[in-house]
């Protein structure tokens, strides 16, 4: 899974495969964190605004 695992073989397929995996994971993590942080900031700064939406 990681280049430090002993069966890691430096070959193209592995880079493509693992590359896409990490890309997906990073995208998901970024989205989650982005939403969470935005929500957090919203909550702290514009709490009242939000409440007034509903």
């Amino acid at each position, binding site marked *: 899974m990681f280049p430090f695992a002993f069966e890691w073989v430096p070959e193209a397929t592995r880079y493509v495969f693992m590359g896409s995996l990490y890309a997906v994971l990073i995208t998901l993590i970024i989205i989650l964190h982005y939403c*969470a942080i935005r929500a957090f900031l919203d*909550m702290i*700064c514009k*709490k009242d605004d939000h409440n007034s939406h509903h």
Partner: protein
Amino acid sequence: MKLDRRTFIEIIVGLSAGAGGGLMATPVNWKLMDDMTIWSQELWPRYQLGGLKGRLPQQGKVTHADSVCNLCPGGCGITVRKVGDRAIKIEGREGYPVNDGGICPLGAAGLQLLYGPWRIPSPLKRIGKRGSGNFEKISWDEAINEVVQKLGNLRQKGQSHTVACILGSDEGTVPRLFDRFLTAYGSPNFIRTASAEDTYELALGLMQGTTGSVGYDLERANFILSFGSGLIEGWGSPVRVIQAHSTWRSGDLKDRATVVQIEPRLSNTAAKADNWHPINPGTEAALALGLAHVIIKESLYNADFIEKHTFGFEDWSDSSGKTYMGFKRLVRTVYTPEAVSKITGLPAKKILTLARAFAKAKRPLAVWGRGKGTVSGSLYECMAVHALNALTGNINKPGGVSARPQVATRSWPEVERDATAWSGSRRPRIDGAGSNRYPLTRYLPDRWSQVMNGGKAGAIQALLVHEADPYYTTLDSAAVAKAFDAIPFVVSFSTCLDETAYHADLILPNHHYLERWEDIPTPVGLQKPILGMLRPVVSPQFDTRYAGDVLMTIAKSMGGSVASAFPWDDYETLLKETMGDKWGTLEKAGYIVNEGYKPSAWSKAFGTPSGKFEFYITAFDQAGVKIGKDVGYLPHYEPVQPEGNPATYPLILIPTELMRLADSAVGNPPFCTKTLEETELKKNDLFVEVNPKTAADYGLSEGHHAMLETAKGKAKVLVHLFEGIMPGVIGIPKGLGHAAYDDYLAGKGVNANSLIGVVEDPVTGLSAAWGVRAKLTRV
């Protein structure tokens, strides 16, 4: 910003989620998972490799020890690989004159017998009912004392002749010790368990005037005609015969040896043979004589040998002028291909072709001994097959057959017998061997139980059994069980809980064959004399003792002349003394082989009254055998009728023997049982082989249960449809149906011996039964 309760909770939740997420991104969770994987596998004994954790075998120095295998009469050399003091693997010994590195499945599984749970840990005394399997551990002193008392009492009462010993062999120091014990004690009843050797030794004695067992030069023969011998199924010395088989299968196709198998069933041997001729079971003698007919008629026989070195080939007349029929006339008139074809079911044309091919072959060899050679068989059949070897002059020649002596060892001082010993040992044997009825025969292992059940229930008061399992291996198991019940005192020297030990009153466990010294005489069927030496590969695993030592202790405790017949300190001393100057070689090399041994030339080979090979057996009259008719002096075909009424039992049941299934005194180890085919054993039921045509007649189909019934008993079996068996014939594997040992063997299948009764050979009294009549019904 207002820090109210809700916001506070939200912040806490957010932070913990963040911390959790962050932790997930580190290797900590992987490490924890790894730990959990390992930890959970050690948590519960089930995960600990079947409880092996903690008793996983230790590493150690790897060593090798050479010895000999004693699990069958094959006598292969073995090399045991050891790690520390554990034996971890048995392999064939490279360069050993019998098996040169090869090993059979049973031999390879030997360590399961050594370390198995069926070992007898110490002397055991029966406490429950006989056969209940309840024993208590007792000390060696108590055990020996018990035997001494029982045997002492019998001797005092003048009943020493009611003690019998049953052994698997009569050669080698240990069997000889038992024989000597009986001689000194005063009993004639030394019994060797049944094998084809019984009959072959007699046939060789009668036709060639020799003592000793048969030796086949299989390796150099190039046309092998086998009359039902399971050449690659454990016949003879199994590995050696399989290696010979490979020799026949080596080289260019056109130079290879020809193998022809005569057998009602497509055994492995038949399948590997170049030609398989299924004939009606029990008609082998007729076929042999039919072949002789063609060979004689077409003058294909070895005229030089026949003219100069045989007696009774042509008609002859004695000094009084009375003319006797010779082999030639008998065979020419009676065994025409047409007549033989009618008996055997083999087309006349095939008989002609086979006879010609056999006689014209460079080094033809006819071999005899059904299956693995575990049954005695018919004397005339053996003689008829042996006559084929004589016709081709194939006696004492390369690629031929000979009577082979043993490696000579130092003899023991004559036993000084007291009056009891003299009178006891002169009494008639319980099995009737050597009596007026059966003057030629030495042992009648299938007959003693019949005699006991036939009104002489008290004939055996004590029975000692060593390296034999008569309770399991003797035909007609029910009769044997009944006879056993009538014996007040049964002592087993067995190392494993076999059937006989299970039904014994006292078990005096011998060392396992990998724990002891013992001489192993020439393996069965070998053409050159070999003496092998068992040696302790591992130290005794349990509280066991040499059977020889135990026997000598018993004798010594009895005092008097019985004690003085055993002047040796212990068994090992006796062994060394007996081996004499050969001991050094035996200890070092592990074996002695007489490589240069050559059977005597024809001119000196025969010890018969005529000094020649006898087709007409003159020794019959000398020995006092009552032969009714002229033809009885010649090899001829006398049908051995299988037991049972053809109307009730329309089918014929024949036992089949498998290389992967030990059927003698040794119980099949789990590894071997594991290799059995799905069509041989399923859970606890064995399969019988039935031709699909026969099966259709009885409404049976593959894998279904059926009731197999003979005059001797019945058993529930599974049906396996097999195109390789003659219609009307059923094949049942030998070696299953054990009640002793433990769950790895006990309760699986049926003991074939329990379904087959004894059919006595009219001349020898040995069992000539090759099968039994049976019926098979759907259940």
